[in-house]
Every structure is written in structure tokens, then in C-alpha cells.
């Protein structure tokens, strides 16, 4: 076949995936499909209920059944088929498809497929990798409970670490189904680990993915602070949760936008650069404690291992932060980011998703990706691929239309 074209579609060319449509594993299927796997999305007759999820393409009439941008995003590059699994014909059709599949991806409540005789182990297909994404794992009775992205985020510990210094405000969950996406990324990883194992053994196997477990191991340091030091981190506005309060890290730039002031200098070189920046801008008078930094430079820098116990180190650290905040207040957010980065400081600006898509660097790398959308008859711009394979880039095409 057209080896040239297929080789350059994506690294997963040659893998066949049967995906049962779901809300929480859709992103796993998208990752596999955008990178070249042939993913067949199985929906119930009439379409999966995620086709009713907003936002919607508003130029299409409200009665149009295929205008869900949610569905269009999470199902790119897949092909579609509609099957009712609870009919004998549908069950046969699904069995046949599984027989040809390298990977089955499903997010069904434990027991549902088994009732149809369609679960892992019930279909004779020993080389198929079967990926099951549930809320708590296939053998945990809690997977039978109702769940949502928000309950995964709350129970799994993500929300514990996010929010505000003011604890009368609730812990915060992120937008964008991050619990589902966290489980989905692990599901995609698990699928490929099992494919790699199959290359050695010739055998498929079951990959059991727990969303609760996935969120639980996505807390960076919260878990380790407890397990190693028995300290409990607490949420703080715009910065890492920690067992001790830390200084604010978000500043308001001269144009009123939020900037991230970064990790204050930790090396001697960075301290010197910071004092130079303050002096270059003539801001020493506004920050008399710059002298403290001069002293730290004379002493050869700060020892961050002492940050939690040594007052001088803490005072220097705080002054560095004050210096960065002062610099931020003297520039627009964009300028502060560019000037700071060009001087070697890891500072940032807080962009909304559409602002990120318009950023010159993101645009220059070709991340915003036009995709022909048949329902509209023209291209629309999608978020691009999360990983850049230079040899086999992958390709994004439109989600299967509702036929």
C-alpha cells in the first residue's frame, strides 16, 4: 500500500483500535487516532450522548444533531460506526470487530459488557490489548457508583491543592475535564505498554485503568509531603500548595494583566542578573532591600536547602520576589515576560486558552491546526498535537459525522 503516505501519518500507523464511545476515555482514543492508529468509534444507534455536549457550532441550527464542539474535539481522526450492543446482531458485529483489533478501548461500568457476553475474556481474541477505564478500577465496587470529572478531582486529591489563601473560598477544580483527561492519558500509555509487551510475548492482556488512582498520582508533592514528612500541604493562591505559607507569586502588570513572577533566583548568577535588572531600570530607590541581595552576592549566593529554617535566606528570597514584582509592575504583561525571559528569568504571563493559541511562538511552531469540518463546509482551527514527532508527525482530521 501507500507506504510513503502511511509512514508519515503518525507513529501508530498499523494499529487498529475499537473504541466504545465514552465521556471519560474519549481523549485516549483521540491521542491514538491523531498519531496514526486506525480508531473505529462505536456509538449506539442514533449517536453517543456526548454529541449533546456543548459548546456547539452556533452557525448550525439548534436542531442540528451534529454540532457538538465537545464531540468534534475529542473524536478527531476517528472513524465511526453505530452498533446496539444489546441486540444479537450488534453483539456479533462487535465480536467481529474485536477479532481484528489490536486494542479495545472502553469506559463501561463494570458488568455492563459482561451482561452482553462482550467483556474482556468473553471474546476469543488472545492478541487483543483490552483497555478498560473506570472510576475506581474494574474490581472495586465503588466503580458502580455515579461519578463525574468533579468527583474524581475532589476524591483524588487534585482539588485539595488548588484554590486561594482565603480558605473560606472552596478548593478549586480546573476547567476542561482534567480528571477524565488524566485517566485517558494513562489509558493511552497503558495501551502502548501492552502493545510493547505483545511484541515480546505475542499475547494481548487486560489494562485496567482507575481514574481515582490516576488523579491520586497527579499531585506532585502533596502525597510525598505526607508520606515522607507527615506534613499536610495547604492550598495557596496561584502557587504551590505547601505546609507553610509562601509569598505571592502572581503579580499584576502595568496593563492590569496577571503575570507569573517565577521561581526567585537560586544561583549566584541569577542573583547578580536580578540586581543588574533592577539597576538597569533605575528601581533601586524603590526597593531599598536590594542591599540585602548585594550582601547575599558577596556571600556567594543563597542555600535553598535552608529556605525553611534560615531567616536571612528567607529574607533574601522574599526580596528577590519583591524585586520581580516591582519589575512586573513597570511593564505590560507581554513585555515583562519577554524582557524577563531574555534576561534568563523563568517568568510567565497568564494567558487564556485563546490567547495561547494566538501567541507568536505557538503560531510559529504551527500548533493551531486547521481541520476541514464537513458539517460547516470549511476549515476550523483546532488545538494541535501535544507531542511533536519529527519523523512521523501525525495528523488531525474531523471527528466522524453523525450519519
Amino acid at each position, binding site marked *: 500500500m501507500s507506504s510513503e503516505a502511511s509512514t508519515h501519518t503518525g507513529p501508530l500507523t498499523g494499529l487498529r483500535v475499537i473504541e466504545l464511545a465514552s465521556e471519560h476515555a474519549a481523549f485516549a482514543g483521540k491521542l491514538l487516532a491523531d498519531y496514526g492508529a486506525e480508531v473505529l468509534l462505536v456509538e449506539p444507534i442514533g449517536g453517543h450522548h456526548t454529541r449533546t455536549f456543548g459548546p456547539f457550532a452556533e452557525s448550525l441550527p439548534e436542531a442540528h444533531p451534529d454540532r457538538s464542539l465537545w464531540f468534534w474535539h475529542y473524536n478527531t481522526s476517528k472513524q465511526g460506526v453505530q452498533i446496539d450492543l444489546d441486540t444479537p446482531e450488534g453483539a456479533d458485529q462487535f465480536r467481529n470487530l474485536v477479532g481484528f483489533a489490536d486494542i479495545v478501548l472502553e469506559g463501561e461500568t463494570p458488568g455492563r459488557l459482561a451482561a452482553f457476553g462482550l467483556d474482556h475474556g468473553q471474546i476469543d481474541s488472545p492478541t487483543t490489548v483490552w483497555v478498560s477505564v473506570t472510576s475506581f478500577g474494574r474490581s472495586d465496587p465503588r466503580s458502580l457508583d455515579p461519578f463525574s470529572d468533579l468527583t474524581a478531582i475532589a476524591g483524588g486529591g487534585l482539588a485539595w491543592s488548588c484554590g486561594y489563601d482565603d480558605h473560606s473560598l472552596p478548593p478549586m477544580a480546573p476547567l476542561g475535564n482534567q480528571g477524565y483527561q488524566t485517566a485517558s492519558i494513562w489509558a493511552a500509555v497503558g495501551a502502548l505498554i501492552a502493545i510493547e509487551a505483545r511484541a515480546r510475548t505475542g499475547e494481548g492482556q487486560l489494562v485496567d485503568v*482507575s481514574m481515582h488512582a490516576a488523579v491520586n498520582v497527579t499531585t506532585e508533592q502533596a502525597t510525598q509531603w505526607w508520606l515522607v514528612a507527615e506534613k499536610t500541604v495547604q492550598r495557596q493562591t496561584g502557587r504551590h500548595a505547601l505546609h507553610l505559607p509562601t509569598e505571592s507569586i502572581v503579580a499584576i502588570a502595568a496593563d492590569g494583566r496577571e503575570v507569573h513572577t517565577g521561581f526567585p533566583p537560586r544561583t549566584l548568577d541569577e542573583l547578580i542578573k536580578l540586581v543588574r535588572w533592577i539597576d538597569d531600570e533605575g528601581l533601586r530607590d524603590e526597593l531599598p532591600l536590594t542591599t540585602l541581595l548585594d550582601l547575599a552576592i558577596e556571600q556567594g549566593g543563597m542555600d535553598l536547602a535552608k529556605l525553611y529554617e534560615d531567616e536571612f535566606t528567607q529574607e533574601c528570597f522574599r526580596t528577590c520576589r519583591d524585586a520581580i514584582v516591582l519589575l512586573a509592575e513597570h511593564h505590560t504583561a507581554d513585555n515583562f515576560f519577554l524582557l524577563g525571559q531574555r534576561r534568563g528569568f523563568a517568568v510567565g504571563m497568564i494567558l487564556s486558552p485563546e490567547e495561547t493559541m494566538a501567541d507568536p511562538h505557538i503560531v510559529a511552531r504551527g500548533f493551531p491546526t486547521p481541520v476541514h469540518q464537513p458539517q460547516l463546509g470549511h476549515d476550523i482551527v483546532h488545538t494541535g498535537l501535544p507531542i511533536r514527532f519529527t519523523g512521523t508527525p501525525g495528523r488531525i482530521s474531523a471527528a466522524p459525522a453523525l450519519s
Partner: protein
Amino acid sequence: MNSTALAGLRICDLSGQLAGAGATRTLAAFGAEVIRIEDPVRKGKWDLLRGVPPFREGQRGIDAGGAFNNHNVGKQGITLNTRTERGRSLLAELVSISDVVTENFSAEVMESWGFGYERLCELRPGVIYVSNCGFGHTGPYRQFRTWGPIVQAVCGLTWSVGQADEPSAGFGFSYMDHHGANLMVFAILAALHHRRRTGEGQWIDMSTVESGAAMLGPMVLDFTVNGRPARRPGMPASNRGHHPLMAPHGIHPALGDDEWVAVVCRTDAEWATLASILGVDEPAWATVDARLAAHDALDARVSAWTRRHDKFEVQTRLLAAGIPAAAVQSPQERTDRDSSTARWGLFPEVTHSLMGAVRVDGIPLHLSATDWSMSTGAPLLGQHNHQVLAGLLGLDDDEIARLEADGVI
């Protein structure tokens, strides 16, 4: 028993922090041989997590950092001074016998050592090389420096956490370090699949800013298709149910000090059930549109009830009624008192040469035939120098002693 899923796969691992080390720890848990290379001159401190808290009581020092241990479970650790010619030649030897080379330095570092992708290919034809940095290796910001929170700020994720009328709350941790690492695992495995089919290796130029931006897709489409920016009045209101629309959908106070519980109604029927539990009789709130329009009043009614009950009682009672609910769990509650994480074996104990027995993050997958395992903690600085240099590269004791004396390892 060690997993055989990735047996025979060797990773020459120059990566660190969480965004890199988090990837190779997963490969190690599934049986890959991960050789982590650190700088003896800076005592491995390029990795900010080496030798920083959390520490075990009474322990300090470059080998005692708890997060470093967590992110480097199951790896071998060696030191190589790449400023020296001998150090670089040993690195070249390691590359030549490795399947994969990983790093998450700033964009110019590998080139400056003379180990750009072309050289790696010469050393090991078919090599899979993953560079993972905030802005990637091309584009106007390629030399900019990032760490997790900067990536999250620039990619839209920080903005996406917060109340409508407050500043950005952001993530209280480096969320994208986790997913940068997880996607790096995906990248390596996908590239291995391609290499098995074609014999071709490749360079993977990961930018975690792009990886993060790819996690906010529907909101971006709302802008590119409908012209509606996510940054608008009333947003982000990130505890509310946007896609799909749900109400109530939020985190509410529970009995006790700073205790919280998430409550969600996905359907009008779930709301009808919740309303009867709450004792709320508001026929006007029968539809989700009506409840969204009255969200503040709705939240107040839910909170008035939840704050009189223990968060786990709310969870149990609502789940029994068919309504999604979950206590906001503390780290201790998740690790020590959660029957599901215990049943999963999610926080296994490993043995670290200095810290002793310590629990770490496990893997949220179970494979029926070749499951993961974790038994040894992170390597001490240079712990496996002898094992790797003698065992893999065939150096004798005298040569190794000389390398030590010369500051090469």
C-alpha cells in the same frame, strides 16, 4: 516479581525534575533498564528536587529528598562529568548501546555538549531521542526557561482554575510536569512501535506548553468556531459544570474546619432526588437552564445542607441516592484511609539506600499479564557507577578508580 513488559529496553536518561524523571520512572516500573546520568560537579543539583524537602525526620542532604526519591524509583544512577572529554566519550558509549535517549534540559544544552540528534543517530542508528522542554526546540521562545507553573501560566491552564470574581487560582502543583512526563512515555512507546515496523528512529521535540494547550480543546473551539473567548465576564467559574452544562455542580462546605465536598447533578432527575433530600421545594428549578440562571441561590441551598454534615456522610448518602458526590480528600485521607487506593496498592513501599522503607506513588494501571512493580528507591548520587561502567561498558576497577580521581564520575 519485576515486570517484563518492557524487558530489554534500555534508556540513557539525562532527564530530571518531574517532567522528565516522571516518564522514566514509569518505564522502569514496567521493566525497562533506566540509567540516569547526573553531574558529579554540581552533585546532581541541576535537578532541583535532589536534596530538597520533604525529608525524613533527622535526614538531610543530596540523597535524602523525598520528591526526588519518588520520581526516580527503580532507576540506576551514575555520574558523568560531560565537561571532560572522557565523560563525553563514556556518554557516547552509553548512547551507542541504548534504545532511547531522554532529556529535559533547556533547548541548547545537548548541542553544546556535541550530542545533538545527528550525533546521537551516528552513535546509535535508529535511536529514539526525546527532548522535553517548555517551549520546544524551535520557535522564537526556544531559549526561554520554564518550570511547571510557567508552562501552566502560558498554556492557558493557570487561567482555567479559579472563581469568576477572583484572581487566577491556578494549579497548586506542577500538573503539566506530570502530563509532560506521561506524554513522554506515550511518545517513546509510539516511536518504538514505529521503529519496530520500519527500523526508523526519530527525534521527538516535546513542548509542554503545547501539551498543556492541547488539554483545553472544546474551549478553544468555542473561540475559533463561535468567536467566544474563554476570558469573558463570569469565567472561569471552574467549579461549575460547563461542558456539558450541569447544576448544581460545585464544591461545598461540610461540617468541620475547612472540610469540603463535591456535589454534582448530571440530570434533572438527579436534581429532583437531591432537592427532596435537601428539602428544597422550588418548582422553578426543574430545568438545568433555570438552575444555571439561579446558580448562586442554588449553591446556597446545597451548602446550607452540606455544612451540617460530615463530608464522607454526604458522599455516602448522595451516592446511595444515585448522585455523584465526593469528599475533598486530604493527602492523609487518600493515602492512609482510602479503601480504594489501598485495594489498588497505589502507594507501595520501596527501599531507599538512605531513607529506608518509604511509600511512593504507584501506577494507576494494572496489567493482567505484565504488571508494574516497584521495590528500590531512587539511586544515591553515583550509586551504580561501578555496576554500569564495569557491567555494561566493561571498564576495570583501575579505570573506574582513575575516573573518580580525575573527576570524570
